[in-house]
């Protein structure tokens, strides 16, 4: 019997432990080693934390769905942002991910509404207009008094294509679209900015 066999045999005494280690690997950036560390930590030192984690995780997966208006994560039918009467209802900002909403809420004074696509158009990955909920957004544009659609999708090829499709969709209904500005990063030096970004920044310069 080799040393390796012994190691495996030891772990195999608890198949539940193995299952836990394997399950933890579904988290981003967690490989077998970190998963093992996490599992031992939870069982050895923090069983209370493990219990509450498993309860919250269970409830979150069961109860958190998408807001019927903006598709952001919420356990209610409509999210707090959509329900907030003080928000400006004539502007909708379209983003790719729920994390983008949190970023914009934290760093800007935007007071309008959102629409979360949960991705960007990528035909080769099987993500088309239906998957991004574009028909839902189109219906909203038709039924609500929207004046401006802010296209805050990523500056990747897929993000640009998505923004283009959205602008065509809004254009059909006569709604103005705006796109996030692209340019020199705050605190950055021109010398180290790539050519395309400089060109964009130069074209989009504004009165100072």
């Amino acid at each position, binding site marked *: 019997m080799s040393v390796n066999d012994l190691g495996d045999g030891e772990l195999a005494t608890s198949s539940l432990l193995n299952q836990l280690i394997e399950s933890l690997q579904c988290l981003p950036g967690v490989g077998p080693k970190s998963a093992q560390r996490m599992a031992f930590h939870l069982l050895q030192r923090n069983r209370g934390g493990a219990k509450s984690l498993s309860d919250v995780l269970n409830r979150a997966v069961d109860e958190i769905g998408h807001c019927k208006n903006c598709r952001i994560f919420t356990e209610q039918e409509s999210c707090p942002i959509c329900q907030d009467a003080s928000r400006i209802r004539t502007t909708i900002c379209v983003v790719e991910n729920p994390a983008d909403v949190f970023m914009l809420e934290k760093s800007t004074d935007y007071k309008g509404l959102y629409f979360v696509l949960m991705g960007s158009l990528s*035909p*080769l990955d099987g993500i088309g207009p239906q998957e991004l909920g574009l028909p839902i957004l*189109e219906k909203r544009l038709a039924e609500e008094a929207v004046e401006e659609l802010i296209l805050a999708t990523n500056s990747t*090829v897929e993000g640009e*294509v998505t*923004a283009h*499709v959205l602008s065509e969709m809004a254009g059909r209904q006569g709604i103005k679209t705006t796109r996030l500005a692209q340019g020199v990063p705050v605190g950055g030096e021109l010398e180290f900015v790539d050519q395309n970004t400089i060109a964009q920044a130069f074209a989009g310069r504004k009165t100072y």
Partner: protein
Amino acid sequence: MARKVQLQPAYCMHARAYRESSQIVDMLTPGHGLIAAVHRGSRKQRGANRILFTPLLISWSGNGELFTLTHVESQGARHFDLPGMSVVGMYLNELILRLTPKSSPSQGIFDLYRSVVMALGGNEIPCENLLRLFEIKLLEKTGHGLLLDREADHETEIQPHAVYRYDVESGPVRIGQSGPAWNILQGTTLIALQSPLEMKHESRGAAKKFMRGMIDQHLGSRPLRSREILQFMRMTPPD
């Protein structure tokens, strides 16, 4: 020993996220056909996503089906920047990935792709005509060439005002009357498809319907997803 391939011309067909910061890229090369490779750490590099529709020089190493990219540099500027064109470009890429066999070298397919993306950026030839040229040539180079100038007997010339039923296996067969099926078409459409770049506006609709049906024959049951985006963009406003 791991095989190393140095500085090959290539175009990226598709890049999808892999693990934390890498991507798996599908590259079209003339000497090695379609290859899939891991591009390590590429999502952390600024502008990594701009490799689509850009002529590249790439090096890779490894064995088996998934290689490791060791070097990527652009060989020139991106062929087009308009997002509207990128949708069309994605359609070309999807066709290549769906119709071309993996790792089978083809200078012809590479040259065809390069000339069509360059022309799309040039904006001088109508986009629809370029797409028909690409579809016809790609079918030809993947062993599904069309018979457009003769009937299925390979002798009788196509008559502009006659009606034909295109049989996928053998070619156009003259029939009595027109019908709604994708493979029933006028002689004028077949003649227009012989030189797609010069196609006039009036032939484009019928040519598109025919080519669409023909491509579907070779794709199997899974539809083309980029077509859905193009269709969504052309939708009429709701009443």
